[in-house]
């Protein structure tokens, strides 16, 4: 069983550029990393460094310009999003926009199940279980997105991602638009999910302090390159790259 030995996700030398020739701009250069089963990788960087593009590439929402991506050793570069969405579910920053405003949360979730699992047998039980796992009352699933608070909608969108039992969650700045208290709630439920289900995650954020509380490894990105990757202790206590030091210096802790 060679495939079991392979990491869940491997990214080899991927690059992405927009435009061609002189007008072209390379936004990601030569990225390499591996992600093992059950691991949480934090990706930190400033606006425009290419963090979101990286997630789009991994989930095949955009084609790569160069390089390979492997899922358990299987090369899936150039596949359609519909092919990989049973493995990866992406959660975006603005979840209210990700739900159909004219459908209840439950109806939106059923659609996911119909597309990915094919049948709706047992759908209510699955939805209730996931909504409960995110610490929400199952009655809330029968509401419309606008009837929930920002933090609740975000937790619903995580529940929707999990309903189809993906191998991995790709989180793109999921707490950036929220209050600290709602953010802390989401982090707690994500932490419990990890403990209960061993979920693998890529957690994109610009908040180094937050990532250091939650991730197994943190990658620091600058201008389309990963400049440093390591455990939170390595990054926070002994940063090697100058840019990491700059970022660490700019974190404003409550004195």
């Amino acid at each position, binding site marked *: 069983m060679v495939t079991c030995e392979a990491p869940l996700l491997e990214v080899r030398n991927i690059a992405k550029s927009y435009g061609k020739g002189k007008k072209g701009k390379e936004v990601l250069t030569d990225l390499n990393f591996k992600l093992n089963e059950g691991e949480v990788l934090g990706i930190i960087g*400033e*606006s425009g460094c290419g963090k979101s593009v990286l997630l789009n590439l991994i989930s095949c929402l955009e084609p790569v310009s160069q390089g390979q991506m492997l899922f358990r050793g299987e090369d899936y570069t150039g596949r359609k999003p519909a092919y990989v969405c049973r493995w990866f579910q992406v959660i975006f920053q603005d979840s209210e926009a990700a739900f159909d405003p004219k459908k209840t949360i439950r109806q939106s979730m059923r659609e996911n199940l119909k597309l990915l699992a094919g049948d709706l047998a047992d759908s209510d039980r699955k939805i209730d279980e996931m909504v409960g796992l995110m*610490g929400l009352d199952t009655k809330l699933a029968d509401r419309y997105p606008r009837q929930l*608070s*920002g*933090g*609740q909608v975000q937790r619903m969108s995580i529940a929707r991602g999990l309903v189809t039992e993906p191998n991995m969650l790709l989180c793109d700045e999921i707490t950036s638009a929220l*209050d*600290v*208290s*709602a*953010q*802390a*709630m*989401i*982090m*707690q439920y994500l*932490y419990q999910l990890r403990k209960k289900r061993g979920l693998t995650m890529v957690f994109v954020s*610009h*908040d*180094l*302090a*937050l990532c*250091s*509380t*939650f991730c197994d490894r943190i990658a620091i990105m600058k201008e389309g390159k990963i400049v440093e990757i390591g455990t*939170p202790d390595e990054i*926070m206590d002994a940063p090697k790259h100058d840019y990491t030091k*700059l*970022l660490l*210096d*700019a*974190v*404003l*802790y*409550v*004195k």
Partner: protein
Amino acid sequence: MANNLLEINDLTVTYGDFKIITEVSFAMKPGEIVCIAGESGCGKSTLIKAVLGIKQLGAHIKKGSIVLDGRDITHLGVEERRQILGTQIGYVPQNTRGSFNNIRSYDVQYQEAMRSHNKKFNRVEAIKCFDRLNFPDSDKLLAYQPWEMSGGMNQRMAIALAVLLGPKLMLCDEATSVLDVTSQKEVIEELAKLRNELGWSILFITHNLGVASHIADKLGVMYAGRMVEYGDIRKVLDDPIHPYTRKLLAAIPGKDRKLPVGLEGRPPLDGAEWEGCNFVPRCEYCTDSCKTRPYKLQEIVPGHYASCTSGRSV
């Protein structure tokens, strides 16, 4: 009390029937930086808008007064208000992309802004001001157009313009929330520097207590339209009295790399009249008397006010 720069007394603001701010009072001395923190929807931005003049936005000041430098500005007319905005009260919004025209140079837009406030625009002075704020390439900045700038730089250009107009009081509404951590730190340092050099007073609205702890002298915590705690920043952060303030502090990822602790539920945002404390549904210490006792900000320790002391560890 003529030595207070800004006094807000018993202010109540409504949008239609919705009560957004309920009986908020505090005072700012010249040269002070006051931060107001709280969740979205707690009325922090409305508070700033009340000082700026809120009638055009459809809100109504039902009760209370706002006094700037001894002068009551609560119900000023449009023309009178225009004379104090900019020159006496400066304002930096959260997103300054909308404050500048994207495709005209800063030079032209600075000139226009100064002229509309009956002030002369002096390029040399503007560049001096950029230098004082440590902007890179200060002599070329005015020739740029906003679309050529990063969000952080644009924000700083807006601050510089406010500085040139020379107000006594600066209002910042989440002025650093859209910025990256590195630009956020720079802007915070610039604001602190301005205060030290020019004796500015800043009313700073933020939901980030980390930012507040780095620049503020005083901190006010708002919850669902009420000021639940107010006092010297060190006293509030070191010894938070109100249960909500403690919850807010626990939700911030700290240096110890422990998972932050959240707060379940949402604040009552329906504008309903609350009898007693409006934090009751989310409070772990609440008793029956909390539901009926009227809201009142009390001085617990000298210079440190709170509306509730339940569960405080002494």
